[in-house]
């Protein structure tokens, strides 16, 4: 049987650092009843994490 060789595709899992202040800033922008749609909030969080990942992988 022939196995597919693994590619070294940057699979290492890095721990992510999320500063509590960054999250707090995001959620404190407005009272709950005036917040942007939840979907936009989710994208902000997702972006925040991918930004962190880039910083880690280039360091």
């Amino acid at each position: 049987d022939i196995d597919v060789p693994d590619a070294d595709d940057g699979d290492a899992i890095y721990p992510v650092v999320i500063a509590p202040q960054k999250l707090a800033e995001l959620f404190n922008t407005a009272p709950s009843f005036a917040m942007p749609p939840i979907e936009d909030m989710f994208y902000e969080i997702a972006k925040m994490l991918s930004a962190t990942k880039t910083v880690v992988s280039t360091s």
Partner: protein
Amino acid sequence: KSILDVKAQKAAHSKSLIFEPRVAAVQSYQTLYGICREGFDELCHLDARFVPFGTTIFSEQSQDEDRTQMTASENEELDKKIASFLHLVGARLRLMPAIKAVEWLVRRFRIHEFDSTTLLSTFLPYHTIPAFVTLLSILPSDLPNLYIFLDPYAKSLTPPPRAIFVHRAIHNAEFLTALSMYTLDACRAQQHYPALISFWAGIMTEAVNGRIDRMRSGRSAVQKSNDQSLFLLIGPTLSDALVMSKVPSLQIACYMVITVYVAKGNLDDGTISALMEQLVAGWTVESLRPGLICLSVLAQYRSAKQMSAKVTKALLKVKNLPDLLTDIGKEHDLGKLANGLCLALIDRIYKKGDSRGLPLIEPLLLASVLSQQQAGVIFKSLLLAAYKLDDQVDEGGEIRKDLASTIIRLSQAESDIRAIFTQAINDTEVDLDELEMRLDIQIRPRLLPAQ
């Protein structure tokens, strides 16, 4: 003694969300009912779901109902109706008619004393507005246990900042659970509203982040037990919420929590896989796009490469998946998700003779969703699948033909993918003669015209 009783009664009657105590103290129930019922009727115009309460807690007869004269079971029944009404009115608390209606329940049924926990929970998303401080001002001095941390704000009559709730949610499991239960109950009853979901999502996300930071331990046994206790605390809520297809906004809120949880929580593969499966089991058209992004984050933190059968099946059902993934891939790293999906689809081809995945693999390879290395591996897997396919799963040879045309098309693609494909053939120790014979196609001449 009777003078004291009268005084106490007057003081109790003066607790109001709208009126000054001295004004409230002398109001008759009849006057009050007139004012509050007006508010209630306006609510009914806004949302017909309020109407049934018009024959119970807002009925003419309610003017004469004194809960201290009711039996325990009657009181219990009343509390249920009040809770149900409060859940529904939560969405409208910035409107005067809603405050007028709640005023009736305060004045007639003393919900600030008897139902103070539910009442406070209902007002939480509005903790910044004056009505919240007014509510604090009429609560009994001994706050319910769950909200004892609001005591300084009740005493000083200042609105509590959001950070107080976050801090409590990090340090007090009971509060976090109660907030989740309140929110999920409202969602189940279709009484949710954006501010409630946003409030819960924000507190929950920050609580998870804060709890993970707080529970870091250098000793692995301690860390393991901490991880376990966090999972026990939030796992059931997430499982319940993820499959609430009728409330996509709650699902998206969960994706937010999960994204932070998985990125920081050092979860084991089993937990991540379970979350992935729950996610795809519940997603809907509305939650699909954020769901895919969340799924890709989960995939990034899982060591297993291939998507599980359940996740693969769910992805196969998504309409226009390649277009959707290509679009999302412009902003988010979908590499591991797309890679894991392609691997699973190729597996299905040669193990089960299921080639439904082929039309997905091709555009995914041509789009820039996969990294070059990932694309290389997928190419190799495709070649190997072609090599491994036999009559047992592909009796008529149809799948081999499909696979052949896919490989041909890819090999002719006008992009740098072609170079990767050439490299893949060179790297793979597949007997190409045999492969060509099996697929009844010619690969090498097209690929290597120079030779």
